[in-house]
């Protein structure tokens, strides 16, 4: 059979896209396998702590781990824990999980495209669009989905996977594969709901159900509500409700549950941030002072054009819907997801403390938009004007290649300029070589690296304290079991930025042995830990408090070594803490030395435990 000239060009374009996609995957896998440790950040360090706790307790809900804004179980943490148990290498394990996730996304895109009867060109185009390193950094598109610990990857995949099953059912495909996909989809809904509450349901599934509701009502036949599609929707609702009940039973409230309505005065500003958030997500808007003709500027320009194309495809399909009264099913689903998410993000406050728009909330609708944009771009093969078609194909592919190329150069530049992982690897080596069981990282300037160090430290409990010795950076997405002095047996270390050294109280330094510096971090060792970050009773079996652990000092002064020394008058050298009881029989032991005693008052000093007027004395 003779192939017409125009289709020869399309075939060449498909081959070029195939090569681009293979190269893109190769780069992505390279980053996952060899640079995962270089991408550890403030948030992802908590996921590595989570992985270790899951492995240690052999439970997806380890009692020792305190989640941050979500329960983080709708991620690769379980799989990563298994691989970590097998390999002993946490970054390799996470990298392998990320590769698995990329393959899952590829499978879902191919499944959707199969239902759309899309050709290979369109399918590859959509895959390439999905895996471009758009926005990077801790909360960026790439980190959220495909590299680092990819915390949003499962929850953001769920709606398009759900749509894939819906398309199968609409096509009356009841094969074994569809049934397996259906069960997996329900499982994903359950686990994402347990982890993030209403997020996936509100941002994805609700719109898909709404679209089917509209289509069913407009079909005019109530029997259509008895179809397999509606059976699937019903099962999804049951899975969602079950997940909410389990989450409530676990006593966790995800951040998505705590939302207020946008005020009138905030609405215009929020709308602009919502709109610009789309460009931020795709990396299509620059930070301050970026030259348009430097590689960073060119990268932003390429992504800006891509973003406009994505948004343009939405406008195109809306116009098409108005004009032709009908659009492909995946387009109607996508448009409804955009409508619902746009509504939600414009009526609810979805910012955190800093007031920044959380542009990662755009990921779910933008997945649908990229599928729409890919199918629109795929129609270029239908253009009869060969010159126009060739220009569009060449220009489009050149734009994609440029966006990918500039982005990947940017990824490598950022990795090469970031020396934190080398520094933290070295710090961890010192801790391991010296058999340090607990290390305290102190000071506001070291909080981020302290949290990152938790990812590297396989054998040491890392406690991170800010300038005020508050350990919130340790427990927010972390663990609490080493906070009390009683839990810090064995050798201990203090790690601090040289600039913060002067802020450290004498009682923490009197027994400290300087060991070495790594970069701008000073490391000190202790034979016994002087640190204590928990006061009075809690659920633990044993606790130790020092005079500096929160007591009120009356007729006593704190000494350089942390002892409280009374001044020889009547009074209470240490008192207070004001805590709540914990059920059980407890033994209190005071360690002290009487340095001088008046003959007339010999034996009259006492140690007392008091509760609501009742006094136990020794």
């Amino acid at each position, binding site marked *: 059979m003779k192939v017409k000239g125009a289709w020869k060009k399309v075939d060449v374009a498909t081959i070029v896209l195939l090569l681009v996609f293979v190269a893109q995957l190769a780069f992505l896998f390279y980053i996952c396998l060899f640079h995962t440790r270089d991408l550890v950040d403030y948030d992802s360090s908590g996921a590595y702590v989570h992985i270790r706790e899951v492995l240690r307790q052999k439970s997806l809900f380890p009692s020792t781990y305190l989640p941050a804004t979500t329960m983080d179980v709708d991620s690769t943490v379980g799989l990563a824990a298994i691989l970590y148990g097998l390999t002993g290498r946490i970054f390799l394990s996470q990298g392998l999980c990320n590769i698995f996730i990329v393959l899952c996304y590829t499978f879902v895109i191919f499944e959707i495209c199969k239902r759309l009867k899309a050709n290979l060109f369109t399918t590859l185009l959509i895959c390439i669009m999905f895996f471009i390193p758009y926005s990077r950094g801790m909360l960026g598109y790439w980190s959220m989905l495909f590299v680092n610990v990819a915390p949003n990857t499962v929850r953001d995949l769920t709606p398009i996977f759900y749509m894939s099953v819906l398309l199968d059912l609409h096509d009356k495909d009841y094969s074994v594969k569809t049934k397996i996909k259906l069960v997996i989809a329900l499982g994903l809904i359950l686990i994402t709901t347990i982890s993030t509450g209403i997020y996936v349901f509100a941002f994805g599934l609700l719109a898909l159900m709404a679209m089917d509701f509209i289509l069913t009502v407009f079909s005019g036949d109530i029997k259509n509500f008895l179809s397999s599609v509606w059976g699937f929707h019903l099962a999804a609702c049951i899975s969602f409700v079950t997940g909410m009940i389990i989450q409530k039973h676990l006593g966790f409230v995800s951040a998505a549950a705590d939302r207020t309505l946008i005020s009138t005065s905030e609405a215009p500003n929020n709308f602009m941030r919502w709109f610009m958030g789309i460009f931020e997500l795709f990396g299509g808007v620059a930070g301050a002072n970026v030259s348009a003709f430097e590689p960073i500027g060119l990268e932003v320009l390429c992504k800006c054009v891509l973003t406009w194309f994505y948004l343009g495809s939405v406008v195109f399909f809306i116009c098409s819907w108005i004009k032709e009264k009908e659009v492909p099913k995946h387009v109607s689903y996508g448009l409804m997801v955009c409508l619902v998410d746009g509504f939600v993000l414009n009526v609810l406050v979805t910012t955190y403390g800093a007031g920044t728009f959380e542009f990662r909330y755009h990921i779910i609708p933008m997945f649908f938009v990229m599928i729409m944009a890919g199918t629109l771009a795929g129609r270029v093969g239908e253009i009869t004007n060969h010159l126009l078609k060739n220009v569009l194909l060449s220009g489009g592919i050149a734009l994609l290649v440029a966006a990918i190329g500039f982005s990947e150069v940017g990824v490598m530049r950022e990795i090469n300029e970031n020396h934190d992982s080398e520094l933290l690897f070295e710090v961890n080596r010192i801790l391991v070589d010296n058999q340090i069981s607990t290390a305290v990282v102190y000071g506001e300037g070291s909080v981020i690296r302290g949290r990152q160090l938790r990812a590297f430290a396989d054998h040491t409990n890392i406690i991170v304290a800010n300038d005020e010795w508050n350990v919130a950076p340790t427990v927010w997405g972390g663990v609490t079991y080493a906070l009390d002095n*009683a839990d810090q047996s064995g050798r201990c270390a203090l790690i601090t930025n040289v600039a913060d050294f002067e802020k450290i109280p004498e009682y923490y330094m009197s027994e400290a042995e300087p060991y070495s510096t790594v970069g701008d971090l000073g490391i000190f060792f202790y034979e016994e830990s002087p640190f204590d970050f928990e006061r*009075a*009773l809690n659920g633990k*079996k*044993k*606790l*130790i*408090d*020092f*005079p500096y652990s929160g007591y009120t000092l009356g*007729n*006593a002064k704190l000494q350089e070594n942390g*002892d*409280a*020394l*009374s001044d*020889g*008058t*009547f*009074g*209470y*050298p*240490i*008192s*207070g*803490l*004001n*805590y*709540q*009881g*914990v*059920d*059980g*029989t*407890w*033994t*209190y*032991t*005071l*360690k*002290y*030395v*009487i340095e*001088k*005693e*008046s003959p007339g*008052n010999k*034996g*009259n*000093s*006492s*140690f*007392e*435990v*008091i*509760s*609501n007027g009742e006094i*136990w*004395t*020794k």
Partner: protein
Amino acid sequence: MLSADKTEAVIENLPITSEMTDMENRVTTQEGTIIRIKSVTMERNE
């Protein structure tokens, strides 16, 4: 009572419940006594 001959004072088997609030522990000294306080350990019995 705290004794110059000892370095530990132990209050054993305190029946504490979760209903108890405003709990505190303290040391009381008399005129002429100088005491060095090192730590307080709380341990739940098996």
